[in-house]
């Protein structure tokens, strides 16, 4: 067996296999790229959504929360929070942090202006309309 199956053959399986599946992945990615803007309603990414996302990232919201299941598991899912809580609750919640309840997980107060909070809500509203193949299983995220 050892004489039949050489190292050169093993190397060729590695290079051939990797190359073959890389090409397939790139082709699939090209196709996915055409479909994503339809699935996530990219046409609804307004300047407010973009500003909200920038605030979302530069305050590292995903360091505690998840968005479509990605992020940290310290705080609730935000991909569908717009549908779960609605805009008024979200605004009031962000403004009232931290709760200061002893022992309870604390969210910092980020000192956002009202306009900034509107932008954040616009971003979360946009997130809530992405076609995620029916995930999460229910509104609790």
């Amino acid at each position, binding site marked *: 067996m050892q004489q039949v199956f050489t190292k050169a053959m093993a190397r060729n399986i*590695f290079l051939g296999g990797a190359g073959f599946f890389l090409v397939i992945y790139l082709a699939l990615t090209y196709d996915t790229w055409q479909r994503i803007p339809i699935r996530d309603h990219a046409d609804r990414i307004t300047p407010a959504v973009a500003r909200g996302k920038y605030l979302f990232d530069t*305050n590292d919201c995903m360091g505690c929360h998840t968005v479509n299941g990605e992020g940290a598991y310290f705080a609730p899912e935000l991909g569908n929070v717009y549908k779960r809580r609605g805009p008024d609750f979200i605004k009031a919640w962000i403004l009232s942090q931290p709760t200061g309840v002893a022992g309870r997980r604390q969210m910092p107060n980020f000192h956002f202006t009202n306009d900034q909070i509107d932008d954040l809500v616009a971003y979360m509203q946009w997130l809530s309309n992405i076609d995620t193949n029916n995930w999460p299983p229910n509104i609790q995220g």
Partner: protein
Amino acid sequence: MNYQSQQVAKPYFIAALLLFAGQIVFGLIAGMQYLDGSFLFPALPFNIVHMSHTNLLIVWLLMAFMGAAYFIVPEEAQTELYSPKLALITFWVFFVAAAATLLGYLLLPYSKLAAMTGDAILPTMGRGYLEQPLPTKIGIVLVALSLLFNITMTLIKGRKTSINLILVGSLWGLALLFLPAFYFPVDTVKASYGWWWVVHGWVEGDWELILGSLLGFILIKITGIDREIVEKWIYIIIAMTLISGLIGIGHHYYYTGAPAYWIWLGSVFSALEPIPFIMLIVFAFKILAQRRREHPNKAAMLWAQATPIMAFLGAGLWGFMITLAPVQYYAHGTNFTAAHGHLAFFGAYAMIALSIISYAMPLLRGRTANSLAAQHREMLGFWIMAFSMGVMVLALTGAGIVTVYLQRAIDNPLPFMQVQEKSRVFFEIREAGGAVFLLGLLTYLSSFFVAGEYTYDDEAKKALKA
């Protein structure tokens, strides 16, 4: 150690272990915040602790991989490193940049750090593992280029073994796969899709190639087995890694906005991802069983033997449990994933790093192996860390199952925070596991200070005991 320039690996290994200790401290703080949300708040909010924990992990592993490259490439190429001086300068640049970045996290609000470092020019901050400010990210690229230049020039002028080709090639891959870190579009679905090029590309692709080459190198050294056999195995294993893992990236695309065909593609191919880890176990045990010499460094042998097993459990088994789309529908975004992440990072990458350090550090200190007393201490450290990591992983799995059931599966699902409160006992067990892990790490680190080297007296004592 055959070449003087291999000595540059030493500061990399020492820094890796220091940063590892830092990682564990932040892990304990984060775990404590799960139990008492007011702990260290508002000085250190959870997200800051979390990014310190994960970024230290990445940096110490990169330090260890770089040290491994500077140690292995000259030895395999049978020539001195192209520029040891450049390697040392690069070390200090990387170490200082990592320390400055960590201080930035700890001392400044994250949004202020973003504003001060030009994130508005090219937004890259605010996603998992890639929280670094723009100057740090550019620094990482420069450090990687310096490493690649140095080891590639060494490879060109020396012997081109398969181990060396795979190692140098996969370090090029590591650097290339970091570049999507600079791509962070407003379209969150595209951003997430591209984020996985870095994260999946590293830990479920390229880094497995690094793991394979490091393990192959160690096994050749400690067993005396013909390198043709070892290298053939490694090629087949890493072939399976990429054959399963390239399309296997689809298991990250089920529920993040990508098209539905990834549900099938991701499930089928990612279900194959444990195969290379099973092959790694068979390979390591077979090679060790057929060993032609008894290397005095038994600790390195233990690490090399345990790495494939722990990697299989963490990356293979725990990964498989949540990889199929119908399962992930419930397990996605829960501590089930955290359990998998902990055991996979520890079992595959922390342990291969500690394996090469275990083999190389005695040589860098001018001895074939440490004294038996030092080796026993090191192995005790291994067992405590492996055991406590197992406790943490089971606890996180328990917490994940509670979420799956109470928040996702039952008819009247509970809100997130209520479910978290009901998971409390698991977070307590996880924190206890973390504390024991720190003890294990301290035990391990203390083994470096147990004096003496392996001698024939040790050998005689062992022989008499047997």
